[in-house]
C-alpha cells in the first residue's frame, strides 16, 4: 500500500504550503462563530452538571469528562489555548480515581468552570496576556506544565 500511496503525491512549490495554510486559516475563521456557540452550549451543560456535583456517579463523571474533552480538543484550534489548558486540567481531575474523596481535586474542578466562562466572556485567546497568567495562577496551573503535547510517537518514544 505504501508505495501506492507515495505514488499518489507529488511535490509542490514550497510557497504552496503558505497559500494552503492561509486558506485553512480563512476557512477555520469562518467557523469561529459556530465554535463560540458550541463552546457556550458545552459550558452551559458543564455549569448545570457542576451545580449539583455527583462525584460518586460514574455517568455524571463521564458526561462532564466528555464535555471538557470536547473543549480541550477544539479550543486551541480557534486560538483559545487557555481553554485547552483549563479543560485538560478538568479532564485529568474528573478522571482521577480519587476525585470522589479528594477535596482539592473537587475544588480544582469547581474553579475551572468560572475560568472557562471568563475565557469565553473576555475572549482570552493565545496565552491571554496578564489576565491569562492571573487565571492560570489562580487555578495553580502553569502553561509549561500543561502545554498540550506537540505530537507523535517520535516525540514521545525517541529518547
Amino acid at each position: 500500500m505504501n508505495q501506492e500511496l507515495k505514488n499518489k503525491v507529488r511535490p509542490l512549490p514550497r510557497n504552496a504550503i503558505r497559500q494552503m495554510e492561509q486558506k485553512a486559516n480563512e476557512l477555520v475563521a469562518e467557523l469561529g462563530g459556530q465554535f463560540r456557540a458550541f463552546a457556550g452550549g458545552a459550558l452551559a451543560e458543564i455549569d448545570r452538571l457542576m451545580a449539583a456535583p455527583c462525584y460518586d456517579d460514574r455517568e455524571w463523571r463521564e458526561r462532564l469528562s466528555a464535555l471538557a474533552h470536547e473543549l480541550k480538543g477544539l479550543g486551541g484550534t480557534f486560538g483559545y489555548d487557555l481553554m485547552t489548558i483549563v479543560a485538560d486540567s478538568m479532564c485529568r481531575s474528573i478522571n482521577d480515581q480519587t476525585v470522589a474523596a479528594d477535596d482539592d481535586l473537587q475544588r480544582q474542578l469547581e474553579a475551572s468552570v468560572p475560568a472557562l466562562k471568563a475565557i469565553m466572556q473576555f475572549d482570552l485567546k493565545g496565552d491571554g496576556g496578564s489576565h491569562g497568567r492571573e487565571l492560570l495562577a489562580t487555578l495553580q496551573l502553569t502553561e509549561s506544565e500543561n502545554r498540550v503535547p506537540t505530537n507523535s510517537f517520535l516525540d514521545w518514544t525517541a529518547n
Partner: protein
Amino acid sequence: MRAQDMNNHDGGAGGWRSVPSARGKVYSRRLPTLDLSALRIFVVDDNEFTLTLVKRLLTAMRISDISICSDPVRALVEIARVKPHIVLTDLEMPGKHGLDLVNEIRTGKAGIREDAAILVASAYADREQVMQTSNAGANWMLAKPLSFRRLYEGLVRVTLDDRPFIRADGYIGPCRRVHMTPPEQLVAKRRKSDFV
C-alpha cells in the same frame, strides 16, 4: 519541478520551524510540501463540529475526496464502500472505540487493505494512550487540538511511512522497532526512485 525542491524548505517565513518537544529536545519540523490532492481520506469522529473543521482543513490542502462519518459503528460499512487511502479516526466515541476500528482494519474486517494508512487524532494523547495506539497498529497519532500544520504533518508522515508492515501473532501494523524515518529523508530517497 524538481523533486529536490521538496527538500528545500528552509524554515523561513512559511517554512517549518523547529519546535521543542514534550521533553525539550528540538526536532526538525521541516517537512516537504506535497500535493495531497489525489488522496482519498475517510474521517471518523463523533463530534459533528470536529468533522466540519477537519473537512475544511483537508479542503485547504486541496484534497477533495473526503468522506466523513460521525457513527463509528457505521464507519466500518462506509470504509468498505469508499475504500479510502487514509483513515483518520478519533479514539473516544460512543458505540465503538477508535482502537477497535484500527483493529478491524488491521485484521481485514473493514473491506480494505490491512496495511491501509491509519492516522489517529485524540485529545487524550498522553504517553500511555500513544503506546496503546501504536500497539493497535496505527501509523501515527495526532494530539488535538488540530491545526492545519499538525494535520498536514500527520498526513505527510503516514503517506511517506516506509516502515515494514508486520503480520505477527498479536500485532498487525507498521514495524514498531523501526522509528519512522523523518519525512525530509524519505523525500531524499524518493528523488532517485520516484521523481527522475
